[in-house]
């Protein structure tokens, strides 16, 4: 027979459990730190190329006077970009979710913005704008797609029953948005912001490589690169990580508080979305416009900004370059060769990146403290510019496929992971309790309920990851292997071969759009079979 315990005591026991969970997260952080310290002290990784945290701190202490203006400048660029990018993203997400047609029309532009290689965009931004503007733009672009996607997903996943209540009182789009959709999308949007934070910091830093400005962690990093002093580079990288990490933490805390009250109390069983009438003509028309729109915008932008023709290839100029000039055959040959080198790794990278993200997301449910412990590491991969990290990676992994994979995964997994984890956390308790009542362990709960219930998030995550895979491979090629599209792009910069720069950019965007489109097609089949609302 059990002893009676006063209820109050149970409450304190419960909160003790929560404290324990928090404690084990902190403990994991400490463990990680100690582990890193040991590795660094004993010079276990790459003959000491990975410095110990204590060495990094010591170095930061020495360099401390240098930091404030750099941190401040990066904060300014990243902060403004974050605000602007996310404001636009949320507004666009609302528009897209409310009028799905607009989303289909804008898809080309959206994916293009997301998939454009920063190494191609940054030089153009730098000659088009001055001062902080390139940084703000690149940071904003880094935020736009993730937050926009998150907003759309969040709004689309709003419980139909609640929407019906608002509708029943004559609330239309606007009111529905305010009272139902926005609020229920907040956790998803916050997950978008969580990913956007490191993206903004990295975006600002990357644009700082474009020079002009004297200050910014990116400027500092470039100056420090040539010193061969990893502890300095890590100090800079970790400063960026801390900036992004604080934002991440803030949004995580808010999200954690809100997620509980955002998920349905009872399992929603709303009528499946009516099967969209498949009009071939409409689909084709939309597809064409969506495809043409980025080209149109591209043309318009160049016309407005008056970028000189030698630098700014218009679509027609590019066509000429690729098909009409004497050198076209050579150019096409180079492109084809590069593509042949890049594409296979992209496929592998995509698969591995997604699997990794998925595994992490599952672990975030199964082993919360471990994943939280891992988060700082994940954030480092998102904020540490690869220019600085690659030399270390090269020392560890060489310059072969494993390095390409590593870089590709690091560029792909994070948004996908955060999105999936958010999806899993949104599954209503009532749904999970069904298998639980039949003794299902955490794995079965995931397999039978949480995963299928969060399929829309899973696909949203996949859509985030897929365009990035190509980018990852390109970065690895540019920094380490000297092959493929990434190298071609960088080399073309040195030759002032703007035709090729634009060609590579366009090809990489087209491929990303293609992958994205494939995911959307699969998503539509899978989700509509299950009566879920797929992406438009």
């Amino acid at each position: 027979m059990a002893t009676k315990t006063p209820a109050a005591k149970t409450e304190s026991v419960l909160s003790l459990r929560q404290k324990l969970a928090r404690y084990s997260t902190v403990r994991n952080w400490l463990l990680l730190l100690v582990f890193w310290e040991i590795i660094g002290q004993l010079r276990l990784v790459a003959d000491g190329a990975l410095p110990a945290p204590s060495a990094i701190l010591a170095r930061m202490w020495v360099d401390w006077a240098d930091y404030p203006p750099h941190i401040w400048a990066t904060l300014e660029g990243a902060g403004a970009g974050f605000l602007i990018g996310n404001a636009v993203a949320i507004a666009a997400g609302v528009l897209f979710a409310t009028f799905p047609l607009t989303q289909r029309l804008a898809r080309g532009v959206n994916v293009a913005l997301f998939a454009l290689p920063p190494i191609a965009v940054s030089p153009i931004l730098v000659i088009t704008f001055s001062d902080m503007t390139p940084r703000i733009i690149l940071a904003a672009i880094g935020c736009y797609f993730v937050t926009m996607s998150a907003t759309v997903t969040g709004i689309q996943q709003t419980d139909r029953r609640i929407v019906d209540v608002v509708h029943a009182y004559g609330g239309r789009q606007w009111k529905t948005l305010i009272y139902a959709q926005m609020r229920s999308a907040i956790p998803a949007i916050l997950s978008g912001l969580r990913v956007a934070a490191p993206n903004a910091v990295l975006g600002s830093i990357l644009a700082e490589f474009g020079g002009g400005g004297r200050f910014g962690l990116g400027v500092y990093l470039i100056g420090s690169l040539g010193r061969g002093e990893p502890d300095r580079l890590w100090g800079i990288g970790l400063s960026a990580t801390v900036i992004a990490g604080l934002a991440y933490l803030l949004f995580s805390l808010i999200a954690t508080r809100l997620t509980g009250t955002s998920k349905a109390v009872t399992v929603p069983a709303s009528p499946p979305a009516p099967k969209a009438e498949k009009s071939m003509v409409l689909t084709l028309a939309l597809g064409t416009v969506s495809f043409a729109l980025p080209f149109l915008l591209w043309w318009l932008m160049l016309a407005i900004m008056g970028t000189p023709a030698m630098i700014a290839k218009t679509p027609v100029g590019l066509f000429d370059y690729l098909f009409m000039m004497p050198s076209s055959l050579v150019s096409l040959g180079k492109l084809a060769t590069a593509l042949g080198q890049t594409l296979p790794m992209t496929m592998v990278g995509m698969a591995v990146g997604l699997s990794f993200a998925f595994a992490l997301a599952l672990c975030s449910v199964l082993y919360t403290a471990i994943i939280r412990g891992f988060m700082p590491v994940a954030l480092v991969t998102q904020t540490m510019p690869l220019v600085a990290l690659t030399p270390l990676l090269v020392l560890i992994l060489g310059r072969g496929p494993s390095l390409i994979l590593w870089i590709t995964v690091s560029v792909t997994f994070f948004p996908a992971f955060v999105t999936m984890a958010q999806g899993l956390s949104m599954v209503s308790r009532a749904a999970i309790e069904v298998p639980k009542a039949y003794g299902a362990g955490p794995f079965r709960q995931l397999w039978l309920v949480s995963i299928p219930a969060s399929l829309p998030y899973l696909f949203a995550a996949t859509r985030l990851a897929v365009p990035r895979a190509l980018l990852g491979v390109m970065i690895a090629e540019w920094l380490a292997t000297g092959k493929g599209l990434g190298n071609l792009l960088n080399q073309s910069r040195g030759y002032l071969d703007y035709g090729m720069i634009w060609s590579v950019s366009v090809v990489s965007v087209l491929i990303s759009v293609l992958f994205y489109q494939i995911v959307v097609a699969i998503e539509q089949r899978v989700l509509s079979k299950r009566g879920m609302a797929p992406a438009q």
Partner: protein
Amino acid sequence: MNAEHGITINQVSRSFTGRGTLVQALSDVSLDCPEGSFTALIGPSGCGKSTLLRLALGLDAPDSGQVLISGMTPQAAAKSGKTGVAFQDAALMPWRTVEDNILLPLDVLGRKRSAYHDEVAKLVKLVGLDGFEKALPGELSGGMRQRAAIARALVTRPEILFLDEPFGALDQILRRQMNVELQRIWMESNATTLLVTHGIDEAIFLADRVVVMQSKPGRISRIIDVPFDRPRTPDLFAHPTFHALEKEIAEALDGH
């Protein structure tokens, strides 16, 4: 009959193509609920009662036929704030407290919350949720959630009230209490009311007319008038005419 201020459902049909099969949820259904009338809708599970309500609320459109609420389209009526509804499922917003959930229709209609302060307190008391004003839906029992939904349906003092099995999750005692209260509110407000219920006794106790539906296809099979005066008291349940009506409705439900 005053079609201008009541509910007019005119030869409405609605079918669904679910996974491969076609379900005729409503087939040529016509029903007039004059202003101030109280109509109970009763029928087997799946006969189209909720579908009919969704059409009347403008949440769904009929394949053919027409629904007019106060002479307006359902959407327009909803927008004008004339209607109130409690769905079969409580459909509370999980992030709003009980009180805020009850206030939701006012927010949507753009009415001032402050003007309804007393009303809300009264309604919370009426549905027995006093002390739970600040509770979130996730902290309530099934029946408590349903009661919050009832309060929400009443908060706008609707002229037209749709209730889809509002008392399904309540115990009999509470249910009786709520029946009496609903009658009182109805008599005070004179709201045209359409109540979906599975309780034959409840239907008779509350309604002027009991509309009996049949399924496959969903249709109205009989309309039975209830002759009792108002206010009706719980004694009525023992009334012989009451029993006769109960039997008649049960038989109508049985397909006789």
